[in-house]
Structures are given as C-alpha cells and as structure tokens.
C-alpha cells in the first residue's frame, strides 16, 4: 500500500482550545479587558523610562491634593503619588505575573496527581483543605514570621493561597473525566496513567484553570495590598499599591486624597482582570 509522504502525525493537543481563547478577544468585553491590561502593564513596566527620576524624588510640597502637576497629589515626603503609584503597580504586577502562573501550574499538578495515585490524590486534597482552613491574613503572618517581610514572603503567600482553588478545579475535572468513556477506552487500550493524564484529562482542566487564573490575579493583588496595609508587605522605600495605602491611612485626616490614587488604580486593575475572566469564561463555556 502506498501512503503519500506527508507531514508526521500532529501533536497539537490543545490547539482547538487556543483557537477558542482567541475568540474571547472578539467580544467587546474581551477587547476592553485586554486593552486595559496591556495599557496598564505597559505603563507599569515602562515606568523607569516614563519617569526616569525614579519613585524617590522628594520635594518640599508634602501632602498636596491632586493637581495638574501631581495627578494624585504628593505624599508626606513630597514625592509624586502618581509616579509612586505607577511604580507600586509595577511591583504588584511583577509579583502577580510571576506568582499566579506558578500557583496555577503547581495547583493543577497537585489536583491531577490523583490520576497517577488515587490515594496520594485524596491526601493532597486534605492538605489543600488545611490551607483553606487558615484565614488569608493569618497565613500571611505565619509566612512572614518564618521568611521575614519582603518579596519572597509575598510570593509564597500568593502561590500557597492559590493552590486550593486550582487544585480543586483540576481534581473536579479529573474525577469527571475519569468516568468518561474515552478515558475508559484509553485504559482498556493499555495507555499509561501519565499519558492518560496528559492527553485526556489535562486538556479538559485547562479551560477552568485559565478562567480561575484571571480571577485569582485580582485576589493576588488584594492579598499583596492586605499584607502591605498591615505592614507585612514590601518594605519602604520600595512602593507597592498596598504600602501606599498603608501610608495613606496614617495621613487620612490631614490629606484625605492621599489614598485616592492608589485605590483608583487598584480598582481599574481589578475590573480589567475580572472582565478578562468573564470574557474567557463566556467563551470556553459556550456550547
């Protein structure tokens, strides 16, 4: 029999999904979210170019209200709050863009471990339950106590607090997919457990995990803010949205507009990522 010499067998195991994610960005919501996220991220990461002076330029005009010179006003040392907010946003986004994917991947793997060993799978779930049992702030305080306040502690807190969500989503997919006939078909063919996990279960887990990832970005930023407000986040002089709010609260009676700028940025970021999650969700769940 002659078989034409053509391309080898494809290995595109989630190509159809990627095509579907792209569809999310054809909706108004999706376009708006993506534009906002790109603009915010560009502004944040290009801050050293846009504001070459850095975030620590002091002046005598301290605790000023917003004006054309200082969009968000100035802080207690006369530093421009807009510049500090953008640099703060840079810290936050850097943190989140690194920690959230790590949490997604780790959580998914922990959730899917049950495909290889059912016992280990349920043990891991109980461990994740324990993490959920800690209120977020307590968890943060524990980690800071061990590691000391700073970047590492924040990273660990964000990654760990994301694990239960991703882990449970992945496990839910695993449990439902294991009952599917094509997974049983693969088992009767003698396909290995790891291969079944990678080929049949993981691609189905990707959809909900991605959506959850977009949702979790918002939570992660709030985790940073919450820890920083109580002084356990990034340490001065490094700005973050949370430390700015922390300082702002101290001067709330003398300069009520201090907290306004960082809050607005926080809200815009949260809205943008929520909208992204929404748009992705609508697309992947479309029948």
């Amino acid at each position, binding site marked *: *029999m002659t*078989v034409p010499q053509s391309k*080898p*067998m*494809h*290995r595109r*195991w*989630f190509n*159809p*999904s990627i095509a579907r994610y792209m569809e999310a960005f054809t909706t108004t919501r999706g376009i708006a979210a993506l534009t906002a996220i790109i603009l915010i991220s560009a502004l944040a990461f290009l801050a050293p170019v846009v504001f070459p002076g850095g975030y620590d330029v002091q002046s005598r005009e301290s605790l000023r209200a917003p004006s054309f010179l200082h969009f968000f006003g100035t802080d207690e040392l006369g530093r421009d709050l807009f510049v500090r907010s953008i640099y703060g946003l840079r810290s936050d986004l850097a943190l989140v863009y690194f920690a959230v994917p790590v949490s997604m991947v780790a959580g998914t793997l922990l959730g899917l471990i049950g495909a290889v060993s059912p016992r280990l799978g349920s043990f891991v779930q109980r461990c994740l339950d324990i993490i959920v049992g800690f209120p977020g702030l307590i968890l943060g305080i524990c980690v800071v106590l061990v590691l000391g306040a700073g970047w590492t502690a924040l990273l660990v807190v964000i990654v760990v607090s994301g694990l239960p969500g991703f882990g449970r989503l992945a496990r839910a997919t695993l449990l439902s997919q294991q009952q*599917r*006939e*094509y997974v*049983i*078909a*693969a*088992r*009767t*063919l*003698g*396909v290995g457990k790891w*291969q079944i996990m990678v*080929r*049949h279960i993981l*691609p*189905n887990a990707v959809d909900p995990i991605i959506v959850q990832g977009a949702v979790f970005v918002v939570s992660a930023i709030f985790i940073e803010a919450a820890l920083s407000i109580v002084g356990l986040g990034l340490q001065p002089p490094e700005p973050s949205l949370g430390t700015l709010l922390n300082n702002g609260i101290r001067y709330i009676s003398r300069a009520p507009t201090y907290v306004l700028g960082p809050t607005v940025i926080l809200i815009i970021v949260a809205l943008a990522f929520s909208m992204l999650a929404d748009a992705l969700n609508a697309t992947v769940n479309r029948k």
Partner: protein
Amino acid sequence: MTDIAVQSVAPLLNVEGLSASFAGRHATIRIIDNVSFEVKPRRVLGIVGESGSGKSVTVRSILDMLRNPGRVDSGTVMFNGRDLVGLPEAEMRKIRGKRIAMVFQDPQAALNPVMTVGEQIAEALVVHGASRAAARERAFELLRQVGIPDVERNFDQYPHQFSGGMRQRVVIAIALANKPSLLIADEPTTALDVTIQAQILRLLCDLKDELGLSIIMITHDMGVVAELCDDLVVMYGGRVVERGTVADVFSAPRHPYTAALLHSVPRIDSNTGSQLRAIPGSPPTPARLPSGCAFHPRCRFAVERCRSEVPRLEELAPAHSAACWVSAADRMSVPPEEEGLVRKARRTLSANPILQIEDLRTDVNRGSGSFFSKAKPIFAVDGISLEIRPGETLGLVGESGCGKSTLSRTIVGISPVAGGKITVAGRDVSAMNPEDRDTIVRTIQYVFQDPFASLNPRRSIAQSLGEALGVAGVNGEKARERSVELLLRVGLNEDFLERYPYELSGGQRQRVGIARALATEPKLLICDEPVSALDVSIQAQIINLLEELRDELGLAYLFIAHDLSVVRHISDNVAVMYLGKIVEMGTAEQVYGSPQHPYTAALISSTPEPALDARQEKIVLAGDMPSPANPPSGCRFRTRCPIGPAYFPEREICSTSSPNLKETATGQKAACHFAGTPIKAGTRDEAGNG
C-alpha cells in the same frame, strides 16, 4: 383493517402542509417541509424516521412548542375543526395537556424529583381547574388505571423510588389526567428494556380501547409500529415520504426508503447465513439536505429526475401515498432487494478457548464505604462461567442492570475481580498484575456503545488511532501508515485522519472506534452494545462490518446487546443473563429455537418484530428486575417468573433453592427448576415488585 367505516370518519387531527424552520445566525434551515397527515379517532398513527428526520419537530409544531429559534412557517393543523397554528398562547394552553397530551421519551426527566407522584398527577388536574380533593381522588383512579400496584402507598412516593417502567406509567397517568382525546407519545419506550417496553405498549393499547383515545406514536423502531400502530407516516429529511395503513405499507412499501428500512433490520426468526441488506451512507442533516429527493444519494433506484426535483406525495394506491418519482412512474411496490451476499465459509474453531471465565464475581460497591466501615458488597456479576474460542461469537443478552457491562469491564480489568478466575489465552490473569494486563491488552479489545463518548472530542482521528498504536509499539511514520490501513479496513479512508470526531456521523465514529480496537491486533473484541446508539439504517452497516472483520481476521467476539434480533444474527452461541447470573446458554439455534428458561422465552416474545404476521399474544413479564443489592432468595427470577411461585404457589423450590445451569433436553444449558415448561402467553400484566 382499512374498512370503509374507518376511512369515512372525520379525522380528529388534520395536519396540512406544515413547514417549520430554525433561524440560524447565517441562514434559516427548513426542518420540516410540507408535512401532511391525519389522525382518525381511536386509531394509532405511527411516525417513523431516523434522527434528524423531523418527527419530533412535527409534533412540537402541532402543539406550538418549538424551541426558539424554531418557528412554524406555513400550514394548518386542524384539531376538532379548529386551526391550532397561530392560536394565542392562552388558548393553546387550554388545549395542551387537556385535549392533546404528551408523553416524552425519558420518564426520569419528565417528572419533578421533589414532588410525590400523586401530587404531580393532581397538579395536572388542578391546573385545568379541578378542586384539590377531586384531583386527589382522580389521581388515585389514574394510577390504578395505568397499572401501578399498591396505589395507597405509592401515591406518596417520589419518582426516584420508582423504576423506569413505573415512572413511564406515571407520566402516562399525568397525560391522561384531563381525559385528552389525543395522546402524543415521543419515543415512549426507547429508554426502556424490552420486557418493560412490552408492558408499556400493552398499556397504551389497552388505554386506547378503554378510553377511546387516538395516539400519535413517534418511534424509530418498525417493530413497535407493527405492534401498536394502525396508520403510518414515514419521514425522511423533514418530508413525509410514505403514508398509509400499517398493513399496506408493510406488505407493499411504495418508497424505497421504507422498503430498505423494513429489510435492513435483522429478524429474530431470520436465517443467519447471509449479510444484512444495509442502506449505504447515512441520514442527512437538515442543514445539508441533498437536492431533489433527499433519499436519492442512498437509493438504488435513483434516476436523473430524483436529483433535481423534489417528488410530491402522491396517492399510488387507495389510502396509500408515497413521494417517489420511480414508484409513481411504474405504480408498483418496491421489489425486495436481491438476496444479500452469502456469508463466507467460517474458519474452523480451535479447541483452546481464548477467554475462559470460571465462577467470576464482581463487587461494584467495593471502595465506596466510608472511612470507618466497609460497604456491603453488591455482586453485579455473581458466579459466571463462560468460554469463547478463537473465531467464535458469544452473544450476551439481558436487560439493563443485569450486569453484562460489569462483566465485560471486569474481563478487561477496569472493575476488580472479587472472586473466580479469568483465563486469557491460556494465562490466568485474575490477579491483574502488570504482565496480566499486558496479556489482556494484546488479546482483548473493547468496542463501546456510544461512539461519540468513546472518542476524545479534542483529539483528531489520527491522534486517537496513534494512541492505540503507540501502546502496540508503533510510532511515527509507521503509525500513520498503519492508521490508514486500519481506516481502510473499516471502510473509511485517509481523509479521515486529520478530522475530529464532531465532523463524523455516528456510523463513521463507530467505525473509528472499531479501527482503534483493532490497532493492537487483538484476538477477541468485546462489543458492548455497538449498534444501539446508531440510527436504524446504519446498524446493518456496522453489523456487516463486524461480521466481515470476524471472518477475515478470525476474531472472536463477546457481543453484548439488549436487541435479541441483532444478537441472533451475529452469534454462534448465546448466553442470557439475569441479575448477575447466566440463566440460559447454548447455540443461537437452540436458545432462540426452543428457549428452555422462562426468562429467555419472555425476552424473545417481548421483542417487537417489524412484521405484521408476528402480531400475536406476547408473554409480558410483570414488574421489574430486583436490585442486585438485595436479590431474591432461591431463583432470582422467581418474582417475575410466569411459571414460578408467583403464579404457581405450590412451586416452593423456586424460593428455597437456587437452580444451577444444567443441560436440558434440547441440548443447551438452563438454570431453571422447571426448564422447558410451556408458558401461557399473555400472562397478566401488572407492574409490581412482588
């Protein structure tokens, strides 16, 4: 049957030129086109068609219940002299449920799980203006009428406490609540087992006579039509292709599609030596309807005109119309197709079984206990022994829940063995260690029921086949070559490699499923209901393919099905299973020719035959299969047995001792204390668990 009196009576429902379409984003798709038929008082009209033929849309259009974006384009629906098309919703509601009632396919979905069945029936009455007390009274009466036993107790039960057959009875009771004059039943027995189907069909038949109902019966099963219907409408591609009395259509079909449909299903009493006469191709989808006569690509009589012009429904004989250019031209009924190809000579069977099972038990409740206590074992397979030799086909029949799928899953190692021994190719694999599994994978493969569910929708056909080949150690370019070979072997071609399952029809998907099973070059295929999810006209193709593969490759099959005719057609030996045990086993001729166990006899008798001469008294089993969690003492069949203690109280042995499989006078083995006792047909019909 077609006496003058019936012909001249004014019809109860007259549908004339009904067309409906679905408005899509890009185009409007015509679903039904110019459908006309009438329902006469006290008669049963069957509407037959495959998926996508528009039969459900037709009745939904009649009741103005088309889901958005569907709408009726034109036509009239005269019911009792009133046109229902365009009637305001408030008016329509008075007719729906009161004058015309509907019974759906899935009784589980049609009942509210948080309301007792009694309340649900009463609600149907209260909605149409009855008082609470009167409604309750009437609900009791209705439950009795549809054969629910112990009505006082069952009135306050919830739907989940009822079995499928009982639920369908409740749905029928709700439909009858307001004394409708027309009952529309949309595949009411498709989700049920044959013995329960026989109960429901008999119930509908009795109700028709008792209450003077007219019934529209939607079905895909010509056997059900032969059993119950007086008149018949055959639909294809959204159009009526043939219309007439059942007697006329069955004896002299005028449309090639009807004729092919009647001849493509295997008959329970048929000669098994020849292939089935399959209809080539697959039924069209409404969005891509062929030009002209929708059936022309699959029709062996098609002429040029069929491709371009849509044939009109023309009266070709008294009260018998068909829409076909060819039969309209020669005014003859469609001649039966020349005999199917005679099956090739079979290989001689070797003596060593490829699969041997001894006293196998499977506990389906294992691992479901809590942390502190083990769950009580439930043996869905309870002491089964059988063997299959190379090249042999063992048919395994039984109703749903009897453990046939559990048995097959235990054999391939998906469900754990609780007791007994499985020997595959001479090796004891009961321990299911990695080498055992390897032996199993290389010897036994599985063909699943639902070809859509068994193929991963995210993976192309090449990937699905590649996965199977990878297990067999074939990779890369070699795998591609082999995939093409496999596809050609099952009647597909290279073009299918890069397609995804959703691009394939049901029959094509099942072919891919078979190709995948063949990838590891197994000696035995376990086919778990391989055709029951397919359209009638496709089933014959797949059965022929399986037979061809068996004879060419010397495969052995464990063929599991609930359709007795199909099993008879393909099997050498047949085993009948009831509640985890085999009750009868022998060659197909022995088991079908002279069934020795009353359950086998009842199953054979309950199977609807697509022929009018088969209309005779049936053995209708009472009640449902008990749960395997709590099997009856002694003979497990005794609670429903027509020759057992339920009818002959002196036969106490049935309740005290469990019968063993032993050889009977006619050669096969049966597990019955009174094997071979003739059964009086038409045993009393009563639903109940004893």
